[in-house]
């Protein structure tokens, strides 16, 4: 993985000093709430419902065991013993004290971490495929490019006060595991006309109040021009994006109002002016960055079948929580953070330390965060998988549900977030209570439930096969249900099935949607495929045919 040099270290330490000074000036009354808000947000610090929330950056979701251990220690000493992984592959602490945040940042800096640009109207953490470098279906490992973008976007002097936040995702595989089409910019590694590798560039995707699938700005961009092209897009957006209305300030609104052709024309015109600048990256420099992401020292092994002769529990976990690896004899292993009685994405201090230890023992000391709020040990020898499972199982980290109904994406909701209209963690709990029969879950197959406590869509509800959106109705928590959304290569936005339902009726609503699926599905058809084939109508009819109240 990428390791800091003296320049990275210096910059992060200087940031800690800068933020310490800003915090002290705020506490001394020299900065107003509004002035400090703009400064703290660019350092991941929200002041919300109960306490400040600090969001720590995990560039493209990659952590060393030492970093994860440090996060565990911070959770124990500065928080209430846990952290929450997010859909941007970051981690949030919900209970730090404002005056201690500079100390937390100083501890993070010691393990090459920070909270720079994890919130605010600037370029956020670049996300990527959690199977980067190990998945068999990859053209090229996207992480060196992510690191290049991380560096370029960090403290970018021109783009720190954008109209609105700006999110970039990079993928290099046939499958899109980073939801890149619903990002402000999606970067896809593709082959060009002569077979050379370069990028397809999308812009204008996003969720929130106005969900839009990104459109192609450029079908093929030669690789050395990645940063100059991104800079051209950002400059057009910074100058032209709306600033009069927060709800219309994302780049997706600009792209939609100009039309993709006119947007492209402006970007290309700007790019022509800067494409020869110092932003060009030559092959030697890319090779240097790639050197940080070389494969670990894999042993020469044969593929085996670790589940033969093992318990049914292990077999189920193995089937759902491990995936194929491009190197024979290895698997990638999910650490499920979707235990039924725990808030999705939450992990305790001691669990973090345990996963760090397991990473050292079984997966070359690295851990990845998935955008679906789980962890991944990417390089586990098949012969070690049973022992790894035993360790995870004892710690409550082996819920065998990856890719199933209970592997829900969920924002912190009303329990923590001051933006939320409604709870989401408690709805996840109600869904878990209702759907506790694993035979039924496995029979349903691949099913993505995504839940947000408000229109900001941190839980990606628009692109859930089933999406759940919390809405406030005269002070009561209600939920709007959508079906047919997807975040992958076949990205689509879910359609609302009808009037929103009460909290107590969410699980029953989902049960009725699934009844139609089970009755109507064709062989090998996922819930999503059935919705696409039949449309919303039969699902809607079933949900509202009889009173919902339990």
């Amino acid at each position, binding site marked *: 993985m990428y390791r800091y*040099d003296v*320049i*990275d270290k*210096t*910059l992060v330490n*200087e*940031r800690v000093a*800068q933020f310490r000074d*800003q915090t002290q000036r705020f506490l001394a009354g*020299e900065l107003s709430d*509004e*002035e400090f808000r*703009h*400064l703290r947000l660019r350092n991941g610090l929200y002041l919300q419902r109960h306490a400040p929330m600090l969001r720590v950056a995990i560039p493209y979701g990659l952590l060393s065991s030492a970093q994860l251990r440090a996060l565990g220690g911070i959770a124990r000493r500065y928080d209430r013993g846990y952290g929450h992984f997010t859909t941007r592959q970051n981690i949030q602490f919900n209970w730090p004290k404002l005056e201690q945040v500079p100390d937390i940042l100083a501890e993070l800096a010691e393990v090459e971490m920070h909270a720079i640009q994890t919130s605010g*109207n600037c370029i956020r953490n670049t996300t990527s495929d959690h199977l980067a470098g190990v998945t068999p279906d990859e053209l090229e490992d996207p992480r060196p490019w992510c690191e*290049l973008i991380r*560096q*370029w976007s*960090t*403290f*970018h*002097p*021109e*783009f*720190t*006060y*954008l*109209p609105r936040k700006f999110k970039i995702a990079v993928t290099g595989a046939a499958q899109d595991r980073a939801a890149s089409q619903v990002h402000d910019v999606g970067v896809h590694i593709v082959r060009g006309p002569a077979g050379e590798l370069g990028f397809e560039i999308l812009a204008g995707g996003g969720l929130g109040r106005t969900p839009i699938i990104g459109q192609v700005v450029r079908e093929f961009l*030669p690789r*050395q*021009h990645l*940063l100059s092209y991104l800079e051209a897009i950002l*400059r057009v957006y*910074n*100058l032209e994006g709306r*600033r009069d209305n927060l709800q219309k300030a994302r780049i997706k609104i600009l792209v939609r109002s100009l039309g993709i052709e006119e947007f492209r024309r402006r970007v290309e015109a700007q790019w022509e*002016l*800067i494409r*020869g*600048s*110092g*932003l*060009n*990256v*030559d*092959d030697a*420099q*890319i090779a*240097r*960055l790639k050197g940080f992401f070389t494969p670990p020292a894999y042993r020469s092994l044969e593929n085996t079948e670790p589940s033969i002769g093992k318990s049914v529990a292990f077999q189920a976990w193995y089937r759902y929580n491990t995936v194929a690896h491009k190197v024979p004899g290895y698997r990638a292993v999910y650490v499920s953070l979707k235990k039924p009685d725990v808030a999705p994405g939450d992990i305790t201090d001691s669990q973090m330390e345990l996963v760090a230890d397991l990473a050292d023992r079984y997966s070359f000391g690295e851990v990845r965060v998935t955008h679906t709020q789980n962890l991944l040990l990417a390089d586990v020898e098949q012969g070690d998988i049973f022992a790894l499972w035993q360790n995870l199982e004892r710690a409550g980290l082996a819920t065998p549900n990856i890719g199933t109904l209970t592997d829900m994406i969920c924002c912190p909701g009303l329990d923590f977030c001051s933006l939320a209209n409604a709870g989401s963690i408690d709805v996840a709990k109600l869904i878990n209570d209702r759907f506790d029969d694993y035979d039924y879950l496995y029979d349903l197959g691949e099913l993505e439930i995504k839940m947000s406590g408000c229109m900001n869509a941190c839980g990606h509800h628009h692109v859930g096969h089933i999406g759940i959106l919390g809405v406030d109705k005269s002070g009561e928590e209600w939920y709007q249900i959508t079906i047919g959304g997807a975040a992958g290569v076949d990205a689509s936005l879910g359609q609302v099935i009808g009037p929103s339902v009460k909290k107590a009726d969410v699980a029953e609503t989902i049960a009725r949607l699934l009844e139609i699926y089970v009755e109507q599905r064709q062989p090998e058809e996922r819930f999503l495929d059935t919705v696409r084939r039949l449309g919303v109508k039969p699902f809607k009819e079933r949900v509202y045919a009889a009173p919902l109240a339990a």
Partner: protein
Amino acid sequence: MPRRLLRDGLIVDDDWTYAADAQGHAAGSVILSLTQWQTERDKWDGGKWRLGLVLLPAHKVESVADDMSRFELIAAEFSGPGEGRGYSQARVLREQWNFKGELRATGYVRRDQLFFMARCGFNSFELPDADIAGAHAALSTFSFAYQPSNDAGLALKLPLRPPGIPASA
């Protein structure tokens, strides 16, 4: 009392006057609004005045490009703590229109923005008195940069190179 400014790293008295404050003068250094320049050009363009111009956030740099040589100073106005268009205006002025005069940040300008403003090409800053004391330190907040921009002297981290050094591709 003249306004105090941070200009080229020094705290100085402002030797420019905004046009609204220049009534009664017959010559001097005056900063015009875009509207004044467009509607009263004859009044100011006689050679007695050193001219400056204020760009508001929504103004396009291109709209004054033909007249750029007439201005010794261009000020970009920041309307509030979240306003960011001036950063791009500054880079476009410096890098694409080769503006060599004084580039001033006006409006909501605080020490916490100075480092980025300076990197984008601003060389003078209208700061509130409370922020002037910390301004020098703010200009050296960071010792390195990850991306090329307008500043001389700040070491760049590879893989990027300073502007003007051609890339091999």
